[in-house]
């Protein structure tokens, strides 16, 4: 999959409370959650974001609460992929489980500026900064994670495991 979009740039330790504040967690509706995405770190985000845009951040993106509402809000805001120097552990799992593409690429994350155009090729594992004319190699997913992604997420994987179990 290839994504191309404009960069929204953030620093390190972007926590899930600023991605989707708890005051909006009285719903599970993706569109409603998306209407508050990034609200406490970037109040103008939902007005500015265009379909396909890319969030770029430094280390430890998505730290804090385990709320899966965070990747759901980002995904349904129109963001195509999140590129970061590193991800907090639970956010990383949640992103893969909810189908929000994420890419670990410290160099690209460091050098990208807000407003740059980025092209992310998940299969090739590359991040291209079209504005700056630079290409970076992203970190590959561990084989097991790649298998989960290829199967369409955790629940299809679990269904297959359960089906196998009941056959044997």
């Amino acid at each position, binding site marked *: 999959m290839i994504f191309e979009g404009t960069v929204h740039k953030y620093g390190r330790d972007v926590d899930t409370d600023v991605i989707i504040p708890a005051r909006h967690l*009285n719903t599970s509706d993706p569109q409603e959650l998306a209407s508050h995405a990034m609200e*406490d770190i970037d109040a103008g985000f939902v007005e500015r974001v265009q379909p396909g845009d890319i969030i770029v951040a430094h280390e430890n993106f998505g730290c*804090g*609460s*385990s709320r*899966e509402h965070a990747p759901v809000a980002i995904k349904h805001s129109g963001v195509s992929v999140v590129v970061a120097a590193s991800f907090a552990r639970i956010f990383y799992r*949640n992103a893969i489980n909810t189908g929000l593409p994420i890419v670990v690429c410290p160099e690209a994350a460091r050098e990208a500026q807000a407003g740059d155009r980025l092209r992310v090729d998940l299969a090739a594992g590359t991040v291209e900064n079209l504005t700056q004319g630079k290409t970076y190699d992203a970190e590959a997913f561990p084989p097991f994670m790649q298998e989960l992604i290829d199967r369409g997420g*955790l629940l299809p994987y679990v269904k297959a495991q*359960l089906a196998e179990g009941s056959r044997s």
Partner: protein
Amino acid sequence: MGSTITEKILARAAGRAEVHAGDIIEAQVDLALANDITAPLAIAEFEKAGFTKVFDPARIALVPDHFAPNKDIKAAGQSKKMREFARKHEIVNYFEVGRVGIEHVLLPDMGLVAPGDVVVGADSHTCTYGAVAAFSTGMGSTDFAAAMAWGRVWLRVPESIKLVYSGRPQPWVTGKDLILHTIGLIGVDGALYQAMELAGEAIEGLSMDERFTMCNMAIEAGGKNGIVGFDEKTTQYLQSRPEGSRARTAGKVFASDPEAEYARVLEIDASAVPLTVSRPHLPSNAAAAADLADVTIDQVVIGSCTNGRLEDLRQAASILRGKKVHPDVRVIILPGTQEVCLDAIADGTMQALIEAGCAFSTPTCGACLGGHMGVLAEGERAVATTNRNFVGRMGHPGSEVYLASPYVAAASAVAGHIATPEAVGAGKGGSR
């Protein structure tokens, strides 16, 4: 090659002789939990995937503690979804308002966690149960949905970092100060993807309540789990759980081998750790409480899954007894469970706190995450014994949260600014 306690527990749960850091395993789940915020998403995913039954209705806990008693109509709808699911699937450990407590205080107190267990929860502070020498970690709703259906979970076996606390903490210095200080040292991603093994004579000297507090905050350093070795105090705690409970009848005790491999070993002199406060807006912004006397405050919150146990309330009461909350400050107590409330009534703790001018909440996470029961306005500042001080955590993005122990929070409530117990004339003592 030796193994850490975390590796040994995960090997047991994976049915393997041994596992080591970096291995991807499928582990059997002893308990899976979720709350009124995370369960509704999980239930939707569970049903969308076409699952029709849970792996074991006795090994799932559903806890309406975040926005319950329901804070608004939408929250009521979320709670209702969870309640109906619990009834349909005959979930044994569903706790209705009136019996419910804050999940990470309630579940171990109910005896649902035994040493050597693997516990996964759709709540980041699930790491709390490492205090009883169990492996426990937070996840999202889809992971919880999968665990409910499958009874298993995939895990990457974490590297461990060993934190060795030597010496005896100073008076008034608690487990909360030790963990805030530690997060200040290693940073909010200092233990990213890793197990935090807490050891040393200072940890041995801590009460169980303090060990829960320390393990609870492993996630604030990015940790996968926090864990303390099993000892006499663990036994005493487990044996005083309800008769017939898992804590009293099940479990397996593991200990790290002397030659176990650690990604890092950090020695911390506990006797040099000051009363510690984490300033906005990261738990790693640790400072000495004594240096923050110029920070005036509007609200104090004492309680939560981090510090809502009986000992925490007793510590607060020991400062506030016979004193009054500062006129410009409001104090909200978030007790962990109904049992904690009853104990606090029985020993006079609740009376001392109420007479000092504190408001008692029902057991709920509410104020900690800016949900209800104590939301901050723009420009307001709170001292809280909770676990996070991110932007907007307790309310308006223009509000501020300072994290502290119950002693410091109570002293600050009296002073109207951040204060140590000595500064408000508390007598000698502290927990040691």
